């Protein structure tokens, strides 16, 4: 009998872990510098908690049942859990709440064989604040995260779900969902096949390709006949683009929308151009309705956040040789001279560890030559032979 992991599961061996930690530690350092606090929520949630926001389909969640037959799911993302925890468990806290996480998520994939099911994400949620400052903080924090990893040529695609939704309100109701769906999927052929008046047809095609350099796009939208509320959103977007300045490469894309109502303001994707094509590194957006769904009194609490995909970052960083190429070696190998020296060897090793050294005890009685060989293979620079009286003989293995 050979025990295999379930298809789609993977083991992370020590070098994988060292590389993953390299990424996570840099991100956590940035989160800490921006004064975000770590939150840990359960891996398992009730399925209805996970699905409340409308962005998660049940068939994409790995499901289980608890003892009372309630349907549970392995979390496919963190925002639902954090929203639930924030409004129910952290009642009475003052806003803003700045929270970050570093956790595993799970996705059920139907159609492809043995595709990955467990992923890791690091991200933030900024709760209780809306407006230009909060939006700018999140985007600049995202930029800081990607810069801390030494990534070059990354790029932000930025949309405004509220503005796009309001521009879609001109379409008659039975067709509006199809127009929105076609724009979200960039399906121009379907859009052209809808029975729309020439004027609305033109508007739909305008929205489908409403992207490019921020200044150009703002100007194109500004040329439309906008209501005061739309004008306000547009002006906020303009101010945000000014605040961001030349900090990173930015495409404004007002066709970047979902087919469901989840995001209520900014929506964005950080992408990078690699040799194997363009790749998404993380996504986020503003969700001002979500927390009220979990709040006992339905109170509105605005929120914005993003999640970075650790595997995607890992894959992009791997060829750059920034990641550790080896697991860290021990600084010392401590060898008891004989059986009487064991206790002294442990004491001496502990004394070295107090100086924050990596110390390993030699566990196998063997010849001096084979100890040297072992130390060379494991890149251990110093060996201490300890005698029963506790005195060490310190030797570097001969090259």
């Amino acid at each position, binding site marked *: 009998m050979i025990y295999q992991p379930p298809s789609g599961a993977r083991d992370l061996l020590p070098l994988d872990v060292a590389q993953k930690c390299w990424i996570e530690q840099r991100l956590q350092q940035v989160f800490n510098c921006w004064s975000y606090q770590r939150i840990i929520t359960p891996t398992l949630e009730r399925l209805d908690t996970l699905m409340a926001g409308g962005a998660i389909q049940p068939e994409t969640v790995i499901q289980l049942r608890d003892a009372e037959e309630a349907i549970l799911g392995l979390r496919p993302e963190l925002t639902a859990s954090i929203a639930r925890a924030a409004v129910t468990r952290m009642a009475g806290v003052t806003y803003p709440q700045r929270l970050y996480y570093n956790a595993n998520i799970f996705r059920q994939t139907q159609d492809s064989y043995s595709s990955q099911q467990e992923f890791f994400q690091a991200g933030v949620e900024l709760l209780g604040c809306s407006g230009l400052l909060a939006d700018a903080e999140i985007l600049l924090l995202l930029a800081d995260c990607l810069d801390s990893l030494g990534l070059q040529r990354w790029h932000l695609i930025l949309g405004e779900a509220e503005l796009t939704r309001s521009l879609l309100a001109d379409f008659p109701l039975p067709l509006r969902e199809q127009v929105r769906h076609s724009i979200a*999927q960039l399906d121009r052929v379907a859009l052209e096949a809808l029975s729309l008046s020439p004027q609305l047809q033109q508007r739909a095609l305008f929205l489908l390709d409403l992207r490019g350099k921020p200044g150009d796009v703002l100007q194109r939208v500004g040329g439309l006949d906008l209501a005061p509320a739309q004008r306000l959103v547009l002006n906020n977007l303009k101010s945000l683009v000014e605040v961001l300045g030349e900090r990173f490469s930015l495409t404004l894309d007002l066709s970047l929308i979902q087919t469901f109502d989840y995001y209520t303001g900014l929506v964005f994707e950080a992408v990078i151009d690699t040799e194997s094509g*363009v790749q998404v590194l993380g996504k986020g957006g503003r969700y001002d309705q979500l927390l009220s769904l979990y709040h006992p009194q339905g109170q509105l609490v605005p929120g914005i956040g993003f999640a970075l995909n650790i595997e995607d970052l890992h894959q992009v960083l791997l060829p750059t040789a920034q990641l550790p190429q080896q697991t860290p070696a021990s600084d010392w190998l401590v060898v008891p001279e004989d059986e009487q020296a064991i206790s002294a060897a442990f004491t001496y090793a502990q004394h070295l560890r107090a100086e924050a050294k990596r110390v390993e005890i030699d566990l196998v009685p063997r010849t001096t030559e084979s100890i040297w060989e072992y130390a060379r293979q494991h890149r251990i620079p110093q060996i201490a032979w300890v005698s029963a009286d506790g005195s060490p003989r310190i030797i570097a293995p001969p090259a």
Partner: protein
Amino acid sequence: MLTIALPKGALLKDSIRLLKSIGLDFSGFLEPANRQLQVFDATGTAKAFLVRTQDVPVYVEYGQAQLGVVGYDVLREKQPQVAQLMDLRFGRCRLSVAVKQSSSYRSALELPAHSRVASKFTYCAHAYFRDLDLPVEIIPLYGSVELGPITGMSAAIVDLVSTGQTLRENGLVELDVLFESTARLIAHPLSYRLDSYRLHHWVEQLRSATVTT
């Protein structure tokens, strides 16, 4: 470099003609002795690779090709996450239900419940009969689907029909049309959003070339 996935088979000639009209020449693929999988255009702007028609949307979905030409039938069957930018209006055909000429069925709805239906398009066939609320057994085949009813293995087939000649020659008759299909220009959504390799420019060129022909 701008990379285009082109389908082997019926759509290749028209695809190459269209790309040539905007200055991207991949006619190397049409030479009878060609065994190359990848051809660069003479100006060094773009390259194309030649793959099975079902694989075109795969390369485009994963972003190894930014553009591709593929039949709408393949998009309906595989449901890839790609941007459908243009109806190229060649390669016209339809996905239809067909039965033996000698059978009494004159509509798919007349097929008895739990009939066997042979098809290369199992996803489309399954969805069609599910929407008709008619339970059938779909038998996947990979070629010469017409043999299904001839041998008696299946009561009907769901297959592509262009002129109908193959059906007639094999004593089959077309009943219902699931949908009409033509060649489509598809793009990798993220590359399209980022306008990588001036994608938008090339798509607009193709659009005006299609309008004038």
